């Protein structure tokens, strides 16, 4: 009992520290400290668990921790920054898998449970398994292993009946005191299939929303299994993550102007809203790297607007190099980040941080939108939807109503992109046809590289 008390107390403290750790994320100054605390809390909770009375199979436990932790640590340490999204996906899936596996052990042991516990156990198992399978698919898509979105015929019916079957079998299995191993197997096979089928048809671009949603799923699954095990620390940590994941997913979906339902049940089919919307008049005017370099070199203020294209090209280092050159030449350079620029919330911030851009040079939409008229140049690098003025004007456009960065109000706009490719939403961009807009064609990395050369040459 006293040893149990000690363990429970340690879990309690860990739960408190987890919440404080997430709270510390409300400022970039304290965020890192927060995660370090949370890390210590995790280690502490793991260590005290060994003191739990009546714990068997200690050798196996240690082996599993060393293996699982080791592999994940190593891969997380070595992966490239641009591959982070899929790493988050896969680690998240593993958490879901662990929750489902806990339920599986309980089911195979066949210990009797009351109704509420049995229900939550089944729900946790399903949600966890869906998160596991779904995250694996998400990983495969982002990693480029699985290239195209596979849509089954009558997809939504398949989803529905598969979900029905999974819940039916799951509840049956967890209510019966002596389910056979085979029944348990069928249950999990169904749940895993459900997760796979749900995520398969969704395009790679929608993945961040899916990952965030699956993150919330895993949280819920962990919370439910925490109830089954009578462990409030698991409940608290799981539900906190469940709530936060839900919130993040909502924020993303709202900023993208697409309801979550649509993302899951009516994924973009590729040639999305083509042809719709008002016709755009004017022509796109090309610009050379030399022109771009001189316009910026002799400007007072340049606002850089990065987007998904910068992430694809991995051009953040070049961009910061250019910004520093301009600053040395006396130009004021700031960065403007749209909340859904890129493919993950805060995607651009992470990339720019990686390149070493101090975060006080980075402004978000509300902070900077009023300043564009005072900017001599707005340099758009691989961004498209987030600077599309159609969102302000054209009611028939799928992105109508989404707040955008008003780069068209700057004196000059320079857009770096490879060609006539559309953005995530697949629609034309009226900005590119405006009088004050010039196109600098090329992949971001190489185009900015050329600009740098010319800026240096101008310097003498």
């Amino acid at each position: 009992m006293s040893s149990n008390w000690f363990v429970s107390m340690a879990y309690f403290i860990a739960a408190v520290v987890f919440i404080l750790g997430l709270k510390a994320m409300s400022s970039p100054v304290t965020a890192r400290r927060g995660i370090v605390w949370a890390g210590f809390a995790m280690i502490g909770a793991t260590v005290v668990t060994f003191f739990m009375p009546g714990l068997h199979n200690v050798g196996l436990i240690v082996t599993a921790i060393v293996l699982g932790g080791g592999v994940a640590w190593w891969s997380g340490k070595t992966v490239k920054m641009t591959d982070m999204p899929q790493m988050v996906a896969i680690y998240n899936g593993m958490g879901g898998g662990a929750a489902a596996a806990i339920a599986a052990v309980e089911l195979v042991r066949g210990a009797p449970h009351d109704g509420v516990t049995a229900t939550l156990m089944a729900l946790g198992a399903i949600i966890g398994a869906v998160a596991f399978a779904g995250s694996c698919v998400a990983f495969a898509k982002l990693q480029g292993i699985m290239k195209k979105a596979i849509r089954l015929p009558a997809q939504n019916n398949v989803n529905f009946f598969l979900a029905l079957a999974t819940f039916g079998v799951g509840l049956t299995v967890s209510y019966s005191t002596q389910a056979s191993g085979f029944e348990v197997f069928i249950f999990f096979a169904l749940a895993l299939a459900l997760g796979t089928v749900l995520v398969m048809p969704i395009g790679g671009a929608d993945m961040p929303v899916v990952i965030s949603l699956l993150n919330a799923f895993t949280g819920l699954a962990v919370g439910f299994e925490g109830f089954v095990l009578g462990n409030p620390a698991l409940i608290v940590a799981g539900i906190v993550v469940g709530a936060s994941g839900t919130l993040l997913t909502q924020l993303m979906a709202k900023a993208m102007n697409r309801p979550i339902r649509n993302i899951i049940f009516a994924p973009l089919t590729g040639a999305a809203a083509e042809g719709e919307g008002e016709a755009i008049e004017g022509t796109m005017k090309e610009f050379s790297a030399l022109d771009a370099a001189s316009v910026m070199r002799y400007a007072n203020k340049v606002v850089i607007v990065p987007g998904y294209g910068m992430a694809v090209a991995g051009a953040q280092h070049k961009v910061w190099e250019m910004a520093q050159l301009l600053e040395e030449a006396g130009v004021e350079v700031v960065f403007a980040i749209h909340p859904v620029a890129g493919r993950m919330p805060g995607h651009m911030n992470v990339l720019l941080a990686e390149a070493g851009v101090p975060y006080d040079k980075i402004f978000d939409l509300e902070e900077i939108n009023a300043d564009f008229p005072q900017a001599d140049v707005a340099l758009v690098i691989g961004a498209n939807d987030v600077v599309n003025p159609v969102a302000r004007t054209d009611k028939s456009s799928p992105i109508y109503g989404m707040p955008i960065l008003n780069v068209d109000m700057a004196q000059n706009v320079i857009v770096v992109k490879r060609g006539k490719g559309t953005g995530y939403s697949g629609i034309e961009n009226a900005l590119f046809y405006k009088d004050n807009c010039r196109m600098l064609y090329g992949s971001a990395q190489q185009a900015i590289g050329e600009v740098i050369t010319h800026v240096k040459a101008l310097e003498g």
Partner: protein
Amino acid sequence: MEGFAALYIFMLAAFAGYEVISRVPVILHTPLMSGSNFVHGVVLIGAMVALGHADPDDPVQLVIGFFAVFLGAANAAGGYIVTERMLAMFKSGGRKEGGAK
């Protein structure tokens, strides 16, 4: 645990989580996603208990339990390292880029 106590814990944790998270600025949303991913890695301790209470003579239980602990540990370790790497990159203009000289 008594049912209603658990219900209260669920409700309050949801409130606390929602409120705490809604203060995180957009700039930190990617690390936050990864950080909350780390936090549910606490499923590891649940997995340890499950494996620790599994019947040592039933290989099925042992295998599934081992799997659970393995996955839980991976979630925790991977979630931590990715989050930490991301956050380590955030620097203010006060310090010179490159961080510790």
